[in-house]
């Protein structure tokens, strides 16, 4: 069964501290993973995807197939990073995303 798990519903860190949002997946195929973000009163938007291997707003995420993880990291959190973060798995050939529960990240000043 395809599943995405984000173990932390809430995460609170201080400004300037490192951030890691955890994501684990279960999928028998070759995983295509995404992080979506939803800022307050805004729509869901793509933050980054693993195949791009890019850093967006200082965030990076590495796919670890051995650990079936795709954790999102940022070395120095900023207040504007406060948002809801969703990890998502694309099911190949099915044109759908499977989302994790989401993690609400709060950056304290």
């Amino acid at each position, binding site marked *: 069964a395809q599943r995405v798990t984000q173990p932390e519903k809430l995460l609170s860190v201080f400004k300037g501290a490192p951030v890691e949002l955890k994501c684990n997946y279960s999928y028998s195929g070759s995983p295509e993973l*995404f992080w979506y973000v939803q800022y307050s009163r805004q729509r*869901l*938007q793509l933050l980054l*995807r693993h195949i791009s291997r890019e850093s967006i707003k200082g965030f990076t995420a590495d796919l670890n197939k051995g650990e079936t993880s795709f954790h999102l990291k940022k070395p120095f959190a900023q207040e504007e990073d406060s948002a809801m973060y969703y990890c998502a798995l694309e099911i*190949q*050939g099915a044109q*759908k995303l*499977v989302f994790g529960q989401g993690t609400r990240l709060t950056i304290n000043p």
Partner: protein
Amino acid sequence: EPEVTQTPSHQVTQMGQEVILRCVPISNHLYFYWYRQILGQKVEFLVSFYNNEISEKSEIFDDQFSVERPDGSNFTLKIRSTKLEDSAMYFCASSDVTGLSASEQYFGPGTRLTVT
């Protein structure tokens, strides 16, 4: 920058009534989706649509649900006889390519459906 739009932003309806949620995907996109999020739960896939037909649907998408692209711009989700448990935020999304690579889905702002 083009965006997916959805109307209405909030719909209140009585149990047993039909509702139609409307979406205007990004104009050059070919793939369209509906997701829903019950309060406090995860975003769940409902259905995907390509070339005027459903390409994938979840077990949630039963006979009470239907989708349509009535013209060149709108994409609608109809719930024939709403139940209390249909109360949720419904998101429309669109993408330009899929299947071959990880494609970005662009989401609308959502319609909050409240069934009383």
